[in-house]
């Protein structure tokens, strides 16, 4: 089966800094792919290159066999790519419902979709993440956890095939984080999306991910099942530093 998303030799340079160096991997339909790496490893840059916020210096990105390397973000969104942001970026002047409504209208093309149809859709997604009671509150007045959930609803409302989740745990307390993880798993089951999950916290991905890709200094360190990756010496070294064996 052809992979849903195929990344070939992705390179991104910012002037002299090589942020992403020759990264290749595949995402298959229906799986949860974890993406880990220490701070500044280039995780978010990879996601930005894949969703179109940045153009890669070289390398190609293919989705369902179509080359999307030079497509604009909105074209990629119409093809079924959606993302959440590490620091939530809501539409501050829109209410929770209208934020989701906007992405329901703008997302993947649904012909003959009326304003009302989009509104029903948006209501459904908002209810799914548990924000229905907050539907008329301006996004800037929501709490951090609610913003995270609003981002998830907004991403799901574009009816994506592939959902990029950028550090869902950051800034949440343990109870909220648990809910957030549950919500993403539920979304995967109900809407059949493939999840590309960037995370700092290894424990989360150990439970949820089918495969993990680890990168450091922009280059791929390891790829495989969670157990293989956490036991990989390079990965441990990247997280704990050289000479970790002396203290082990």
């Amino acid at each position, binding site marked *: 089966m052809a992979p849903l998303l195929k990344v070939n030799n992705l390179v991104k340079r910012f002037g002299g800094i090589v942020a992403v160096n020759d990264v290749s991997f595949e995402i298959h339909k229906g799986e949860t792919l974890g993406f880990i790496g220490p701070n500044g490893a280039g995780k978010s840059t990879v996601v930005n290159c894949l969703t179109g916020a940045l153009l890669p210096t070289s390398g190609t990105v293919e989705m369902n066999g179509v080359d999307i390397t030079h497509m604009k973000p*909105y074209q990629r969104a119409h093809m079924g790519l959606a993302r959440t942001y590490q620091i939530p970026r809501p539409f501050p002047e*829109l209410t929770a419902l209208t934020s989701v409504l906007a992405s329901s209208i*703008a*997302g993947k093309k649904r012909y003959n979709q009326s*304003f009302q149809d989009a509104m029903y859709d948006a209501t459904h997604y908002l209810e799914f993440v548990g924000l229905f009671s907050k539907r008329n509150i301006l996004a800037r007045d929501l709490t951090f956890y609610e913003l995270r959930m609003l981002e998830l609803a907004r991403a799901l409302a574009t009816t994506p095939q592939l959902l990029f989740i950028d550090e869902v745990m950051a800034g949440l307390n343990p109870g909220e984080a648990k809910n957030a993880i549950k919500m993403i798993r539920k979304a995967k089951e109900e809407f059949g999306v493939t999840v590309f999950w960037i995370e700092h916290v290894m424990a989360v991905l150990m439970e949820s991910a089918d495969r993990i890709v680890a990168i450091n200094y922009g280059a791929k360190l390891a790829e495989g099942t969670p157990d293989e990756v956490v036991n990989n010496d390079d990965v441990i070294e990247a997280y704990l530093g050289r000479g970790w064996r002396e203290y082990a």
Partner: protein
Amino acid sequence: MVELELKRDRIVIRLGTRKWEWILEPRYWRNTLIWAAILVIFPAVSYFVSPGLINTMISANIYAAIAIPLALMTIGTGRMNFGPNFFIGVGGYTAALLSIAYGWGPLATLPFAILMSIVCALIFSPLVIVARGLYYVLLTLLLPLVFLEVTFIYTDTFKGDTGLFGIVPLINTGNAKINFLLLGYLSTAIMFAYLWIINKVLKSRYGLLMAAINDDEEVAHGIGININKIKIIAFISASTMIGIIGWFYAHYFSSFAGITYLPLTFMLKILLVLMIGGRAQVFGCVVGGYFVAFLEMILIRTMGPIQPLLFPIILLILLFILPEGLFGLYRKRRYREYMPTIHVRR
């Protein structure tokens, strides 16, 4: 015994066992009809009381009719255009030059004024993609000023120093007072048409997409909005609507001089209408237009020579104490809408 009770969104009137409710929302259809009826009756009343008021009313309608498309442009492009009067110059000069050269009437010059506005808007529309924030403000600010210079440099054509005279008047019935009355109604009709069209657009799905662009362009792009298309369409359509106002000015006064409309003073008045009305709220633009026009008229009549100083000071104080504008006073209590406000970005 009549009992009145003020609730959050309505006034409840009780008389014995009977009860009436009056919705306060200014855009509730009954209230809208009342506002519209007042505006329609106003010229007819002032025709008999004080015909000079019709003149002020025309100015107010035209300020509003410039500010309303500007609100659409601000929301749709997510940027603050500081040179909407450039398109007044384009529309006005097109109409004036054609009318003087060929003796055409207003109906003949209108299509050309529209066409020229569209062409100019198309030429400058890449600005909304390449420039943001302060750079966009500076570039749009320069457009009318450069145009003003052009009218002085090519003074043979544009008559930059004296202005163009002898344009065919918009309405000529032979009676000056009736002309004024009809012009009053025409300006009201233009203002209402703009208000109706743009309110419809902003309430539709395109309005919602524009609101998203206005809030965060990158995220809007990411959720699948073709931001460049929407920004350019908003820019061109709003510019064309402003160009039509230039056409109106040229035929209304039978003369057109760039020095009246292209300098900063005129532009500031329009921006203040936009801000005092309620930060790019289309209904607020009407309130703002009438407020600014009548304030100006009252100051000219009562204050005399210090008026040019006092007028901007009053408006700036109002801007300071009413950051959400006059319409914002009401809107503050009702957030259940997605009409966006302006953000000037870096």
